[in-house]
């Protein structure tokens, strides 16, 4: 039945082209809602215990494959469904501003790609592996490529989209290689056969190859460089679904592999270590770079990288703990990682939606042009504050719950005295990440929404349409639910974690369910206390003299709004530490200390990821250099070419004579 709903969704795509321009969004909404609804029903059934079989078929390359929903797929489907519905609802308001400029076909293409992306992501997480997996994986890449290309007339958008396409195909190549290796040994390329492969062949090469392939999508360091390019280029709702959901399919693949290793303790330990270290590096790199960005969407993109790091830290701790035989550590880490996947999809969608609201009014994402937006876009400001608190992992919202679980796992690891060093690595990384995230997001929120406007465009901003607010309220509701009632939210997550770790271990769940119950009471008590203090304060102030005046300028009276702290100055202290991570591009000249009467200066600084130049530029330069030598062979004379052909034949002949070929 679910398969039919997906087919219907894909057929409805045709109707998108026929519908009038304004109503295309509703067709897409219908298709996505249908697919999501069916997915939710199917995943609830799957979480109930049984594996929901969708289809079985013979593929031409990899043999027998199937589409089925087990517990992990069900969780992924839930994540995809919620975020997709919110995204398509949001897209109406966002695309509306482009309806005049773009042709009907252009809009149709966009919505077709959106529906395709949703459907292909669903197929990815249901597929048993092999051909159907690779097919839907590729479909997902192409759909998202078309989605990024929405504003294709902008040069940087085309560049970013192409960059994305190339990076994804490098990753795809690794995946194909991995699956072929798997097929060669086991005769089938399903995820379930990885276990068999690990038993009979050297496991690490396959793991590393697939890890790179999945890591490319997930944005694991150093393969993260497509994220900060693609997200600013893509429309906000596309960024939301790509960052919130699509990169999780990479993590999904990694979890699938870890699931297969479950019985081999030693290997699980090694792989846990790889995942933990790459998670710590990814998280720290992402958060450092996030704190230094001055573009809203670039900052959010780097923060996605950081969150992938947090998820990987959780997974790594889970594997290490499980390998050491401590199921409590394993369960905590796994539940934390899975819950963080859910959480990140929620608050990151909200944040990108907020960024979209700002972009559609300000027509820029450079945060140093903004300031004081809270007065002009109050609802967006509240929504964004909510999501900011959630992503900073502050209690009592959902981000804290997942990090709490990971921390509990690590502290248990420390307390048990077995996995101390690995847990400590995780604790150091996670605490530093937690600290700098607060810096990054107070910077983002403070510079964009608070203070006074830094440019006159701000005053022209108005609140966005209601549908976009509704779209943002969907994730907000889930954030609140998970934050305030984590003891219920953890149940399905624990089911999935049990299915992955293969241990039917209700002890672990019983261990932290009471913790979460008390935490939820504490969270509610915290809100009540804050509200009470506020009410008491208001009551006390009723009889006092309350006046308003300008901000205290410390004796300086000629204050203007350009003197406020900008994003750049906010993170200046961190930049001194993080210098080795990035390359500065300076445009203009700063005011010199010796200039007593400075003339007007223009000064713009941007920080580029060092990996970007190392990985991206270096290859290009090498190609140029090699090409320069190769180009000497291209003389343009036919006799030279005939000589080359002759040399080639002689070489082949000689090699054959000596039996080398």
């Amino acid at each position, binding site marked *: 039945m679910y398969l039919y709903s997906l087919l219907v969704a894909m057929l409805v795509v045709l109707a998108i082209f026929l519908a009038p321009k304004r109503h295309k969004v509703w067709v897409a909404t219908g298709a996505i809602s249908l697919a999501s609804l069916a997915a939710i029903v199917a995943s609830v059934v799957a979480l109930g215990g049984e594996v929901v079989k969708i289809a079985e078929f013979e593929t031409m390359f990899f043999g027998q494959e199937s589409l089925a929903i087990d517990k992990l797929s069900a969780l992924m489907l839930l994540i995809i469904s919620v975020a997709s519905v919110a995204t398509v609802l949001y897209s109406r308001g966002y695309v509306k501003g482009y309806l005049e400029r773009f042709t009907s076909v252009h809009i149709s293409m966009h919505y077709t790609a959106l529906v395709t992306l949703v459907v292909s992501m669903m197929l990815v997480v249901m597929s048993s592996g092999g051909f159907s997996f690779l097919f839907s994986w590729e479909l997902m890449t192409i759909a998202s490529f078309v989605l990024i290309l929405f504003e294709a007339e902008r040069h940087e958008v085309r560049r970013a989209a192409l960059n994305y396409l190339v990076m994804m195909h490098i990753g795809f190549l690794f995946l194909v290689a991995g699956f072929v290796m798997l097929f060669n040994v086991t005769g089938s390329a399903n995820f379930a056969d990885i276990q068999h492969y690990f038993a009979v062949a050297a496991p690490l090469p396959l793991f590393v190859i697939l890890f790179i392939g999945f890591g490319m999508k997930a944005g694991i360091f150093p393969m993260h460089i497509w994220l900060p390019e693609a997200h600013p280029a893509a429309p906000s709702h596309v960024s939301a679904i790509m960052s919130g959901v699509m990169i999780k399919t990479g993590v999904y693949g990694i979890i699938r592999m870890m699931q297969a290793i479950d019985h081999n303790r030693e290997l699980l330990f090694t792989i846990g270590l790889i995942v933990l270290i790459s998670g710590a590096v990814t998280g720290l790199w992402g958060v450092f770079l996030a704190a230094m960005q001055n573009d809203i969407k670039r900052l959010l993109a780097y923060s996605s990288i950081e969150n992938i790091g947090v998820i990987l830290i959780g997974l790594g701790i889970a594997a290490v703990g499980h390998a050491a035989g401590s199921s409590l550590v394993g369960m905590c880490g796994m539940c934390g990682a899975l819950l963080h996947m859910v959480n990140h999809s929620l608050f990151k969608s909200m944040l990108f939606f907020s960024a979209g609201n700002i972009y559609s009014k300000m027509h820029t994402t450079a945060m140093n042009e903004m300031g004081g937006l809270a007065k002009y876009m109050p609802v967006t400001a509240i929504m964004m504050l909510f999501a900011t608190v959630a992503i900073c992992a502050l209690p009592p919202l959902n981000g804290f719950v997942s990090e709490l679980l990971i921390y509990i796992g690590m502290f248990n690891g420390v307390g048990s005295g077995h996995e*101390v060093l690995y847990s400590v690595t995780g604790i150091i990384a996670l605490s530093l990440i937690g600290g700098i995230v607060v810096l990054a997001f107070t910077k983002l929120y403070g510079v964009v929404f608070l203070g006074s406007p830094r440019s006159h465009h701000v005053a022209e901003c108005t609140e966005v349409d209601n549908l976009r607010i509704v779209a943002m309220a969907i994730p907000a509701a889930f954030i609140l639910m998970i934050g305030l009632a984590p003891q219920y939210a953890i149940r399905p997550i624990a089911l999935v974690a049990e299915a992955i770790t293969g241990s039917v271990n209700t002890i672990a769940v019983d261990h932290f369910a009471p913790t979460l119950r008390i935490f939820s009471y504490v969270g509610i008590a915290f809100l009540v206390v804050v509200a009470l203090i506020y009410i008491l304060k208001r009551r006390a102030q009723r009889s006092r003299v309350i006046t308003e*005046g300008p901000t205290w300028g410390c004796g300086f009276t000629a204050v203007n709004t350009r003197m406020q702290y900008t994003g750049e100055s906010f993170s200046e*202290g961190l930049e001194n530490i993080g210098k080795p991570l990035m390359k500065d591009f300076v445009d203009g000249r700063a005011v010199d200390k010796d200039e007593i009467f400075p003339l007007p200066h223009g000064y713009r600084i941007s920080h580029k990821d060092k990996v970007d130049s190392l990985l991206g530029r270096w290859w290009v330069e090498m190609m140029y250099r090699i090409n320069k030598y190769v180009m000497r062979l291209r003389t343009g004379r036919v006799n030279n070419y005939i000589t080359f052909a002759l040399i080639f034949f002689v070489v082949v002949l000689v090699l054959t004579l000596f039996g080398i070929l």
Partner: protein
Amino acid sequence: MLVKLLNTLLMVVVALSITGVIHRTRAVLAGRRGTRFLQHIYNVNLLLRKGAVYSTTTTILFRIAPCVYLGAALMAFLFIPIANLEPLLSFHGDIILVAYLLAFSRFALILAAMDTGSSFEGMGAAREALYGALVEPALMMGLATLALFCGDSSFAEIFSEGQVLDVNLTVVLLLVAYIFVMIMFIEGGRVPVDDPKTHLELTMIHEVMCLDYSGIDLAMIQIAGWLKNSIFAVIAANAVSAVLCFHWEFAAPLAVLGAGISVGVVESLRARNKLSRNTTYILTISALSALVLLVGFLLMQDIKI
């Protein structure tokens, strides 16, 4: 229940008296007679009865932030036991909640400072955000060291009576106490990281963030500051008393005197760090705490060094 109430009551007394001890120590060292012991409470009482001036730039966030600041500090405060007493609230993993509640209070005040649109307050906010971020690993490492010794992750369990600690660990626990006093210096905005008594806004961190607060709001921020100080002071005192005499009658005065006198002495005897050196200073403490954890781990392994 009675024990819990006694603990909370003692915590309040500790929180209220630390500042008094600090002032008295400073006065004695400077050769002054000093103010009344409870002068800071009278000051706050005065603030509580005042009206307020709000900047026209600010939004409602500015008015809620002090409530969040105080509320978060208060919630964290309720989790802290004094030596063998039971705290009012406790659950498995609460040490993480306390750390993040303190982060929340910092978050609220940073945003409030950004809300005024003042370059001075932005400056304070940026510095507070950076130092807060860098001190976070130190805090977590310190807590992890305690968790390592006691095998648990809630304050009540870590400092419960049943924990018998090896004599070997004395030095490590003293170092943990040192780290928590240092964290108190940093989070409380004290010399050598920050100077609350300076007259130049450019060099301040914590005080400059609340420049625009007056009346009840300012009072709330100061009360929250006492609570935060007492949290770190009591943890430090608990760590010390765990090796000497694990009893609240010993730990409570130790928290007041240890924290108060150390802050007073340091403020009287040394100058504030140059601002650019603060990051190095804080990172050193974080590194030290990682080292302490490692040493503690090795000692736990019974490796004879």
